[in-house]
């Protein structure tokens, strides 16, 4: 399965990922419809299941609203690749089973609209032809992600 890249800069905060004016409704439909609205009004229209979001430093800074990673997950985003993540966003993404990849190299080299595939722990940028081994994760975090989130992992 391949996906297209939506690329943004540093400090993409949770207010632009899902503005507070939409936090009165936590339904997937509402979150999906307004994902990234204040940084990229076309995102919700253009994103397809399996696409990727690439950001710079401090991705997901600001509010603890889990609605932010939930909005990206509901929009079909397969993984977020960034130079670094704000810590609550990182936790929230892991806890809901949304893959996140911390890699300054990948975040620099992968371009907007590139097509990516992931197979056997290797991410390939089909557009540039370059492949990247996915960085190793803590076992604990990897286990939560494999099981689809914290609550699912806790059940097992």
């Amino acid at each position, binding site marked *: 399965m391949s996906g297209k890249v939506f690329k943004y800069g540093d*400090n993409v*905060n949770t*207010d*632009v990922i899902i*503005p*507070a*004016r939409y*936090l*009165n*409704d*936590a339904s997937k439909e509402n979150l999906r419809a307004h994902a990234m609205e*204040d*940084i990229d009004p076309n995102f919700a229209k253009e994103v397809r299941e399996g696409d990727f979001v690439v950001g710079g*430093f*401090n991705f997901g*800074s*600001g*509010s*603890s*609203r*889990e*609605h932010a990673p*939930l909005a990206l997950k509901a929009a079909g985003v397969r993984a977020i690749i960034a130079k*670094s993540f*704000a*810590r*609550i966003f990182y*936790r*929230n993404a892991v*806890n*809901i089973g949304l893959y996140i990849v911390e890699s300054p190299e990948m975040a620099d080299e992968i371009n907007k609209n590139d097509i990516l595939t992931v197979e056997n722990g290797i991410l390939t940028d089909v557009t540039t032809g370059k492949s990247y081994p996915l960085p190793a994760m*803590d076992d*604990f*975090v990897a286990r939560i992600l494999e099981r689809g*989130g*914290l*609550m699912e992992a*806790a*059940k097992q």
Partner: protein
Amino acid sequence: MGMTATQKIFARHAGRKSVAAGELITADVDLVLGNDITSPVAIAEMKKAGERVLDPDKVVLVLDHFVPAKDIKSAEQCKIVRDFAREQGIKHFYDVGCAGVEHALLPELGLVRPAALIVGADSHTCTYGALGCVSTGIGSTDMAFAMLTGKLWFKVPRAIKVVLSGKKRRYVTGKDVVLALIGMLGVDGATYESLEFFGALSELSADDRLTVANMAVECGAKNAFFPVDDVSHAYLTSRGVQVRDEDIVLPDPDADYERTVHLDLDAVLPAVAFPHLPSNVRFFGKDVPNGIKIDQAVIGSCTNGRISDMRAAASVMKGRKVAKGVRCIVIPATMEVYKQCLDEGLTSVFIESGAVVSTPTCGPCLGGYMGILAHGERAVATTNRNFVGRMGDVTSEVYLASPYVAAESAIRGELACPEV
């Protein structure tokens, strides 16, 4: 290698003699907090799991973001939390009339104890570290997990030691100190780390410290920590908290700090964080340009909605009028602060100067309601974030400052600091 104060508190709650930075641990939490935005998502997760809260007395639910309910959808969110509190027998449930902005409310109610480990589904949960505990923001799934099990997973943080020296100038507050610090560190300068404060702490009142700790997250920090001293001891006692000797935690003498940052209070001037990052800090008397007109001033929030903030704003506004064309919105953070404003005559000062005074709410801080900005409008606010679109339209601008600066700006109609 010794432990930082934060690491010691994590070790205690993990039932361990010691922990080291970078380790993943599971720790017992003393309090789990949620609000009307984040709790419904956690409650939905709990319902899926089909289980009850492990210890209802360790759960605190505060309706504060969009209350009194701003619209039907918000009312539904509040109802979910209200029903859940009743079903689960949660006594620490605070609704309209006894509630307030959560991070002003919990210390006021004496729910914050030194050496505690407090988690909250709100990023500004880091506020409570001002009183010698570890507190940090989490998400809704975390909140659900902590309510179900009484535990949560943590990565033990590294730490930055912040050493204060010197004396604060007139009109310099905790807000200016923390903005100066965020300006030094940058918005991700302390990501995943603790900020532990030492040195000239007596220069900071308990309210100042709560303001400083509140904004630790704005440089990415996991938590802020102030050791308990006479100032915080007196505050805690006044709030009915019995401080036991074993709850006063200090770092080991050889604690492993990643680095030390020195902040000379003599050099801190009244500050403003310009759009659109809290680290974009400028100072009056240095590099705040003249003539930045404002349309609105907001005085309140978990950062600066306590009684000392109200007194500071009123001291500037007394006998003066809000500039024509400026809306000044004052929001005491809790009902206690609200009543104190009435009792002390501050509410009259605000109203006579042309401001409006609202019941407690987070409202405008996050662009919820009660003061949303139109296209291109500009606000000075005592809140904590000035991101793109934070208080309204994506083209609007938020300037973060102290209550002194926000009040003076409201009177003058442009960014301004009271003259010394």
